[in-house]
């Protein structure tokens, strides 16, 4: 046996609820004991399209929140943007439908052993895993500030309950339809300069993660980001999801974002050469 995917299980899971929230669907799944091993930053992969589907690959979704209490036992929640055929299929599934799931996968966010000042930055549905993370950080005595951004208000995912675990929440939209008009990175340099940030946790589009990495590096702030690369398998066997990452020995390796990520050290990802052959 190997350490890779060591907590992962393939299960048939029932959709307990499927609610539209802005432009997203909040989907609650019954996953039983699997939930015990799910950490913020982990993701699931899921078959889509049903029995005779021409969509042969699994789709990856970040685990937004988990619960092992309540009437159903272990549940986990996904926040899904209806993007292409597969995610639209998932968003159209009724309560009671079952889906084939492999979970949990990937590296979780690292949790500091001492209380720190954490800044959580989410873009679009990238906020999904941050609320679960916020709860954990808060329970460890951290100060948790959160900045969320999206192009428009319907693409901001910020559930009421989630807000309770954060000390502050700022929202940016590009069209100004909610919160401040602008982008999540606008205030970042200043916050780092004020010394109010020890660790940045981020999740969102690759461009946003790259921009945060630059600022974080300038200010020598640790930056843990959850990356998102096109994935065919999610379990490390296809080599499609690679990113160039600087290793300890000074070499650059094409690491699989499904098993060596999605959470990676932003300072090590070679953002400029993502998507290029080397």
């Amino acid at each position, binding site marked *: *046996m190997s350490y*890779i*995917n060591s907590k992962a299980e393939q299960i048939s899971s029932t959709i307990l609820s499927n609610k539209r929230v802005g432009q997203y669907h909040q989907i609650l799944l019954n996953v039983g004991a699997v939930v015990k091993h799910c950490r913020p930053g982990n993701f699931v992969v899921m078959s889509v399209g049903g029995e005779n589907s021409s*969509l042969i690959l699994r789709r990856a979704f970040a685990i937004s929140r988990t619960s092992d209490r309540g009437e159903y036992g272990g549940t986990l929640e996904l926040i899904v943007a209806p993007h292409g055929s597969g995610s639209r299929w998932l968003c159209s599934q009724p309560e009671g439908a079952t889906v084939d799931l*492999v979970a949990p996968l990937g590296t979780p966010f690292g949790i500091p052993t001492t209380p720190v000042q954490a800044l959580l930055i989410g873009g679009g549905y990238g906020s999904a895993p941050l609320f679960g993370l916020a709860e954990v950080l808060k329970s460890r005595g951290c100060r948790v500030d959160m900045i969320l951004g999206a192009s428009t208000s319907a693409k901001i995912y910020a559930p009421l309950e989630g807000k309770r675990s954060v000390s502050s929440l700022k929202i940016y939209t590009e069209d100004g339809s909610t919160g401040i008009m602008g982008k999540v990175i606008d205030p970042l340099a200043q916050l780092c300069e004020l010394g109010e940030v020890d660790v940045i946790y981020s999740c969102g589009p690759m461009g946003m993660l790259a921009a945060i990495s630059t600022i974080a590096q300038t200010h020598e702030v640790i930056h843990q980001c959850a990356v998102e690369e096109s994935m065919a398998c999610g379990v490390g066997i296809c080599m*499609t999801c*690679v990113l160039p990452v600087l290793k300890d020995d000074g070499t650059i390796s094409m690491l699989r974002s499904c*098993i060596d990520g999605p959470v990676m050290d932003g300072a090590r990802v070679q953002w400029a050469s993502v*998507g290029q*052959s080397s």
Partner: protein
Amino acid sequence: MTQDFDFSTTLGTAWFPSPLFTASGCASSGRELSQFFPLSDIGAVVTKSIMLKARTGRPTPRMAETPSGMLNSIGLQGPGIDHFLANDVPWLVENGARVIVSIAGETVDEYAVLARRLRSIGGISAVEVNISCPNVENRGQVFACDPQASRAVIDGVRRTLGGDLPIIAKLSPDVTDIASIAKAVVEAGADALALINTLLGMVINTDTMRPHLGGKTGGLSGPAIRPVAVRAIYQVHAALPSVPILGMGGVRSGRDALEMILAGAQGVSVGTASFSNPSAVLMIQNELLGLLKAKGFGSLHEAVGFAHRDELADVE
């Protein structure tokens, strides 16, 4: 696994308790799948094609989903043969897996050098020679598209390797006459044939209006190509009935594996199906065993090529 039914198979001198294998490049080094089933439960793990030197592979995006298929352009990313033999093979052997090492080179010589490295390694059941690589010495034409180049590669590997390890030559379907390539590599010393590698394909991203893959073209795999794979297996089995074939291309159920066996395959590799179901190889193995028994066969061997039973001549 079985009592009354003989599910075992052979490729050259190599014996396997089951005909179900992983496909090269679709199980990485094996570790990744071992959480989902014990690797010793299936016939063999075929490792991803390893080259002499470490390679970073092709730019991302490296995949595109297509109707009932996918394109990949990994570009043989890997750690190089030395690291691979030091780390991956011992791990597989320790974990009880039967191991088929897939090798890939850019020149005829490179294949021979790779073969030399394998000579002294214990625990390997066979060598799969992936000749679907661009030949840098010959305008980048793929070895497997040219009978002479294919022959030269297998000949070099056969000489260097000596007579012990069976050689499985893996052919490309992107040729006018696959049976003639098959004949060439068998003459050069291949003990078995792996059919088929991916078909060359392409997707244009209609948003960017450019080729979707970083590497522009990619290899098409998955259920979409199964009829092409079955045809290739059938044709080659008709032309070379005594040469064992490892069939692959779009197998995702016991029924699909049976189709390949009936067409003439002695073993079946599962590639893309593992991406959609990490336990696919084991599941397909169980389904195939059940189907063969239900159909009244006494052994896997009896079913191999059974679809040819009322024929005398070649298919065209």
